[in-house]
């Protein structure tokens, strides 16, 4: 494994992110909406701050998912289409290095993006709410990033399975919506089904990644105290397992792909 090459590719992804307009557009959009809500005084209602936080965090989640999926989806297909993968693989670089470099780059790019979004959101929140639990915020940010790690790995794998960037991005975004909205209730739905549907739904419930585990927005919205570190570590391990699974699958797919 060529760590130097992996790091070089990762920095390239980060550089690309801040030289493209996607991030700035989403950030400005989120900032404008957040500031607009922040400027409105709803009948001097104090608890309105909670709703403000909820809306802003939902926006940050949507923006970060869009950035993660769109960034990861185009990495390898762009390299193949522009043929830059050829001079890259003609150097002492393996295809596994390329997948890992792209993953690391997307993860770092999303980490920086999240940090910018959360710092901005913290500044707006501080102007409205005096309670600020640093550890809770850190845990929410960390879990959010772990969730994006799974999505990035899943999207990189998808980019080697589906022909077009747009179809991969759409499928991953729809799957994410399904997982966040429906998967958590799938076990209850399974109970009401007869066999073999019950087994199929249970299998899906246990095999698909439960992204909702990483949603700690309530800690920030309701100013709850921080969660214990053991559940956080367990969740991080859970995220690592799914990330590793999708990355291994992506490496296998890339090795089998004809280049040029």
């Amino acid at each position, binding site marked *: 494994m*060529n760590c*130097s*090459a992996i790091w*070089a590719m990762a920095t390239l992804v980060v550089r690309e992110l801040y030289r493209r307009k996607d991030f700035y557009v989403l950030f400005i959009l989120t900032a404008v909406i957040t500031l607009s809500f922040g400027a409105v005084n709803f009948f001097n209602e104090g608890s309105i701050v909670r709703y403000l936080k909820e809306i802003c965090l939902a926006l940050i989640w949507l923006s970060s998912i869009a950035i993660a999926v769109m960034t990861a989806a185009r990495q390898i297909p762009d390299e193949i289409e522009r043929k*830059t993968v050829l001079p890259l693989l*003609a*150097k*002492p670089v393996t295809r596994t290095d390329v997948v890992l470099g792209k993953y690391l780059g997307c993860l770092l790019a999303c980490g920086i993006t999240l940090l910018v979004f959360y710092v901005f959101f913290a500044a707006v929140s501080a102007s409205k709410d005096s309670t600020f639990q640093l550890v809770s915020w850190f845990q929410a940010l960390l879990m959010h990033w772990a969730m994006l790690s799974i999505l990035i790995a899943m999207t990189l794998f998808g980019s080697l399975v589906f022909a077009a960037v747009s179809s991969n991005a759409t499928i991953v975004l729809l799957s994410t919506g399904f997982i966040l909205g429906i998967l958590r209730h799938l076990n209850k739905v399974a109970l009401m089904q007869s066999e073999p549907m019950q087994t199929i739904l249970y299998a899906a419930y246990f095999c698909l990644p439960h992204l909702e585990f990483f949603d700690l927005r309530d800690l920030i919205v309701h100013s709850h105290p921080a969660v214990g570190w053991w559940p956080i570590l367990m969740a991080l391990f859970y995220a690592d397992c799914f990330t590793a699974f999708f990355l291994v699958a992506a490496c296998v797919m890339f090795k089998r792909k004809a280049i040029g």
Partner: protein
Amino acid sequence: MPPIVQIDDLVVEYVSKERGEGVKRAVNGLSLSIGEGEVFGFLGPNGAGKTTTMKVLLGFMPPTSGSASLFGTDVRQPIARQRIGYLPELTYYYKFLTTEELLRFYARIFKIPRPETEKRINEVLKLVELEDARKKQIKTYSKGMQQRAGLAQALINNPDLLILDEPTSGLDPIGRMKVREIIQRLKDEGKTVLFSSHELGEVETVCDQVGILHRGELKEHGRVADLVAKHGTHLEQIFLNVVGFAKDSESPTEVEIPKEEAS
């Protein structure tokens, strides 16, 4: 002295994407060896197997049978590519980077130390005449400049072997001349160069040896002067003979004359 490139009885087959075509043989029993400091021109019509052979040498695809090695190391080992530079045909490099940043990126892959990288960047940018445009993003470059940026990336590790796939393809005459001059300078520096081209004049000017590939088989191989002496005609005619478009150069070309004119 061991050869830089050694290919023995190479066979490359692939499954055609066309329905009912089955397995196709792109390279058929190719054996070749290129010594140090030689400039080898790979000639052949489209689909002759030139690019496929290069892909095998670069480790992009495995040989079906036979073997290929660079510097005595099997091409399937990534380390075999440590001392080579490769310029693919018509590549669109990362347009959001400047050439300087592009070269730094590739230098980092080779683990070249920072001071050495800066020195090397200055040298290759001077060689490819892109010093003035070094801080401009690649998206602002003309096709010729992009191709020279490509050559610069191929040279960043000061390779002992250069593999150039149609380096002058799509360039205007000035662009072609500049690339040809660069190859000439590399030859003078003692680099080993393997390049494919459709420009026979270019091959004749630059190459020590040529190989004419047709339908995956090496039909002719040797020094340009030797081939010309052996066949008693120029390289273009030799090429046309080999690929089956032979016309007797001594006899007048047959032209169909309209009946009215003939009478």
